[in-house]
């Protein structure tokens, strides 16, 4: 019994001898990271909000964007991967009048995921536009999803199922693909189609929109 206790104590002693530096360093580094995170995380969050607001303001000019979360409404939708995901939905207000909605959307891209901000009118019937929050598409081709020439096609289109075409006129619900970047264009259209549908459904469920079909 005594021998076993001595063995156990020496095992603990050996463990401490071997790993005290690792344990102490982990504690110190953890503390350092916690301080850095506490000091800079408000600024990082502010940068994210500023960027969202700047992009949303370009899509619905002159509006004040009020996050729905502020009024206690959380919007969760099924993402393109199939999992449930919380998204940030903003109500675009001008005084007392609602001008529209904006929300972020994310989906797969050609090289990496594509993150968009999408804006629609107050009834979710017309697309006010979209902009790219983050993407790593190929320079010279797929990266053109960030350019105004591609983005302006979406403005005023019906918030229904958009269709991508490779040539011809981008009329009605048709969007002309970027030459040499059909796959990136397809991903953008797919993300917009999916998120408009699921966000509308979720908002109708919450009673934020009427139940009329487009």
């Amino acid at each position, binding site marked *: 019994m005594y021998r076993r206790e001595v063995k156990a104590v020496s095992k603990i002693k050996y463990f401490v001898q*071997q790993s005290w530096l690792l344990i102490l360093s982990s504690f110190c580094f953890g503390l350092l990271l916690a301080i850095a995170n506490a000091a800079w995380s408000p600024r990082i969050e502010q*940068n994210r909000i500023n*960027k969202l607001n700047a992009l949303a303001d370009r899509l619905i000019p002159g509006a004040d964007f009020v996050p729905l979360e502020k009024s206690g409404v959380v919007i969760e939708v099924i993402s393109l991967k199939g999992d449930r995901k919380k998204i940030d939905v903003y109500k675009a207000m001008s005084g007392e009048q609602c001008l529209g909605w904006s929300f972020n959307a994310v989906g797969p891209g050609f090289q990496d995921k594509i993150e968009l901000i999408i804006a629609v009118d107050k009834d979710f019937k017309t697309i006010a536009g979209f902009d790219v929050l983050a993407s790593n598409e190929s320079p010279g081709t797929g990266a053109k999803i960030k350019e105004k020439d591609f983005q302006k096609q979406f403005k005023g289109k019906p918030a229904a199922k958009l269709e991508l075409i490779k040539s011809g006129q981008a009329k009605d619900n048709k969007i002309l693909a970027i030459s040499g970047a059909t796959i990136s264009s397809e991903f953008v259209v797919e993300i917009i189609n999916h998120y408009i549908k699921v966000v509308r459904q979720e908002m109708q469920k919450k009673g934020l929109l009427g139940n009329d079909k487009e």
Partner: protein
Amino acid sequence: MTKNSDTTASIYKETLLAGLWRENPVFRLLLGMCPTLAVTAAVKPALTMGLSVIFVLVCSNIVVSLMRNLLKPHLRILMFTLTISTFVTIADLFLRAFQPVMSETLGPYVPLIIVNCIIICRAEACASKNNLVVSIIDAIGMGVGFTLTLCVLAGIRELLSTGMIFEAKVMPDWFVPWAAMSMPVGAFITLGLLLGLVNRLTKGKS
């Protein structure tokens, strides 16, 4: 006494210059190839990556050098990784807070500094065997050598792919930008040509 201080000064000078040319991490040791190829489409992100690597290298070399006599041989790689990942996370948070645009441009390549071979190589080859001053000088030499290499590569690629340097137009109006130079193919071709050039210049000298 004077001889001793002369020897020390020459060791410091040798250590500093080694990273810049003789043991340049990219051109001579072929280390840190991932950021060299991935973030050199323009000079600004290349410079930001280089400065981040200098910060991480200097901090990790300081910590490793200070704890070198306490390191257990079988735990040393674990300690190096822990140290490096701490400073990389701090660099990443700093960029996200104060340089959000650049942080977005660099994307996952800032967190990936953790697996940059230059840093673990200098911790193992220099900082764990030398005093604090030599370790700091080595980190500065290697870091500056890496940054300069990245900037040269990025300068050539940005110039040929956009006709600009630091977003300022440099090439004449008749110049047709080569979009391929901003793509991975441009990175491989430019790096290959520069490696060939450096090998040619140093042929027979080693």
